[in-house]
């Protein structure tokens, strides 16, 4: 009996420990004080605030969420040091699921100490939680939700984003393919997620107008073998478009192409921009730059490499989003006020950064979209390095 109790206790402890990895509200800053959500640092107590981050820290796209989390932590740590603030970051795991995001948002909005939130990652999540944040008067800034309706619809009055929209990126990607890669036939494969199908919808009219024969396929991002689809890539199909969120899947697709001796060029988007995807000759369009190519970002890039070695395009925009909130809190404190949802929201609306980790100024329009949002196109060279081909 005693043995059973010990076994049960062990199992329960292990489960709790494992559950901590997917906790909805565990702290993610580096200090122990921050873990409790009640920071008490004597040197910085003059400007203390709590912010949240929503992202898929576990689940199928944890690889993206963990990257975002690492960059958010990095931004908070660096900004706390630079501004003398004591901002605590509380994490909420949404698993890219709108219902989970809603639960996390309710927890965040009912936390009176929380003044603003970074995230969530997916457009479908923003659609679900936008009105909740709006009612709470709390600013939330995403680093990756790109659906145009999020800002066009007017349903999300406290929403901001530091990346471009699908209706800008999708047609531009498609136009580049038409003009420069000149395919007569192409294959486009969505990954059955809102992000991916949204981009495909934005690209298809351009291909149709150009008279290109399109084979539209669809495959779950949980699939890890694409050999059956690759077998359908015929010699006339010279381009395969992969608007995917998981770079490793694009890498495997490229290996399946090589395995079957197919020569089609891969054109990936956003999520595929990562050191996990290095198929030579491939193109990747992204809403974020390669921060390694921006001299001013050298210190951040070095720190990021230590925190999350295989980072791609999802981390830097979250750093930028977190930095906007951190600076808003700092400016509120400098004006002699105590950070609150209302004054932080006002400060975020008035953000005017001359430059950022993204290599561009950050200023929002009245809908929360980034003014002058850029789009970046890279080509992967024979060494697997990303070389900027075009930006706009």
């Amino acid at each position, binding site marked *: 009996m005693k043995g*059973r109790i010990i*076994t*049960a206790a*062990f*199992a329960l402890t*292990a*489960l709790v*420990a*494992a*559950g*901590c*990895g*997917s906790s909805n509200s565990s702290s993610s800053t580096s200090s122990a004080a921050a873990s409790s959500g009640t920071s008490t640092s004597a040197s910085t107590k003059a400007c203390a605030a709590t912010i949240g981050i929503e992202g898929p*820290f*576990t*689940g*199928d796209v*944890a*690889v993206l*969420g*963990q990257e975002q989390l690492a960059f958010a932590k990095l931004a908070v740590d660096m900004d706390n040091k630079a501004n003398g603030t004591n901002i605590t970051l509380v994490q909420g795991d949404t698993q890219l699921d709108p219902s989970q995001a809603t639960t996390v948002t309710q927890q965040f909005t009912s936390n009176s100490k929380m003044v603003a939130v970074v995230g969530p990652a997916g457009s479908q999540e923003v659609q679900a939680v936008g009105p909740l944040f709006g009612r709470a008067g709390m600013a939330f800034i995403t680093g990756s939700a790109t659906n145009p309706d999020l800002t066009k619809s007017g349903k999300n009055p406290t929403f901001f984003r530091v990346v471009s929209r699908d209706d800008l990126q999708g047609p531009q990607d498609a136009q580049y393919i038409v003009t420069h890669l000149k395919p007569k036939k192409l294959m486009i*494969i969505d990954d059955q997620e809102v992000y991916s199908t949204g981009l495909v919808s934005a690209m298809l009219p351009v291909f149709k107008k150009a008279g290109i024969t399109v084979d539209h*396929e*669809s*495959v*779950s991002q*949980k*699939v*890890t*073998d694409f*050999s*059956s*689809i690759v*077998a*359908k890539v015929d010699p006339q199909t010279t381009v395969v478009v992969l608007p995917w969120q*998981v*770079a*490793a*899947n694009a*890498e*495997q697709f490229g*290996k399946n192409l*090589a*395995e*079957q*001796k197919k020569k089609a060029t891969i054109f990936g988007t956003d999520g595929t921009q990562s050191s*996990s995807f290095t198929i030579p000759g491939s193109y990747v369009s992204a809403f974020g730059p390669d921060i390694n190519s921006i001299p001013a970002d050298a210190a951040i890039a070095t720190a990021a490499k230590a925190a999350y070695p*295989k980072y791609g395009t999802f981390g830097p925009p979250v750093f930028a989003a977190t930095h906007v909130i951190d600076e808003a809190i700092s400016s509120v404190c400098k004006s002699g006020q105590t950070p609150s949802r209302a004054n932080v929201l006002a400060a975020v609306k008035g953000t005017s950064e001359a430059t950022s980790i993204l290599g561009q100024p950050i200023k929002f329009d009245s809908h929360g979209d980034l003014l002058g949002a850029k789009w970046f196109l890279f080509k992967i060279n024979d060494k697997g390095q990303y070389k900027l081909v075009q930006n706009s």
Partner: protein
Amino acid sequence: MRFFIQELVNGLTQGSLYALIALGYSMVYGILKLLNFAHGDLYMVGAFVGYFVIQWFGGSTALVIPVPLLLLFMFLLAGGGVGMLGVAIERFAYRPLRDAPRIAPLITALGVSFLLENSMLLLFGASFRDYNTSAFIPFSSGIHIGVLNISLTRILVIGLSVILMFSLRILVDRTKLGRQMRAVAEDREAAEMLGVNVNYTISMTFFLGSALAGIAGVMAGLAFNQIYTLMGFVAGLKAFTAAVVGGIGSIAGAMLGGILIGVAEAMISGYISSTYTNLIVFGILIVVMIVRPQGLLGRAPLQKV
């Protein structure tokens, strides 16, 4: 015809892996009437063991031992290690619940599944890891006839799976342990009264089933390169479907179900569209269940009167 053969090979590769995982589901169900939902995660652990063996011996591009020896170590360590993990899971999570209502071990199995997934996530992070198999087994090796390309890795996966499946069949049919397993599956109490060491037999069943899942994980890494901590979920679900289609509890049924689902997926993807793969595969499952509830090779339950 070449397109058909290409898709057939693709389907057999995936189907072989489903079959190996399905065998574990079927063996455990046959002997304990337990749906071990953690079984797919053992496949994931096996894939990670194989990955770390590659790293241990210098990494995919700088191996310090010959490739055949590397493969041997990968299969032995993944099979042995995951087999022992399966035994430990049975000992600590399922055995205390052997006489509990059947819902208890079922829920425990789900708990073990989440425990394994999240433990691996905490230990090794969310990043995908790449076997980079082509660095030590080049794509150029294998069979290449015109547009038909079958890599050596796929030949290895299919060949080894067939050997393992038939070895298991021989073990169950013709050895003392196999007889004990069949006896325990038939009637645990009667087997015990006849002198069969039931705990040992169940442990060995878990060892064998888990070892096959671990080896399947290594094969998945070799064939599909990318591994991650949640890779066991979908594979486990498909393998479970395979076991049910073939007739859960039946070893031959698990093999048949796995191959059928793998080949069906490839053919649907190749000849119809990848968009409809899951729709049609699970549609087939429903039809099979309606027409033949015990599965293709399963036995109808005996009516006790």
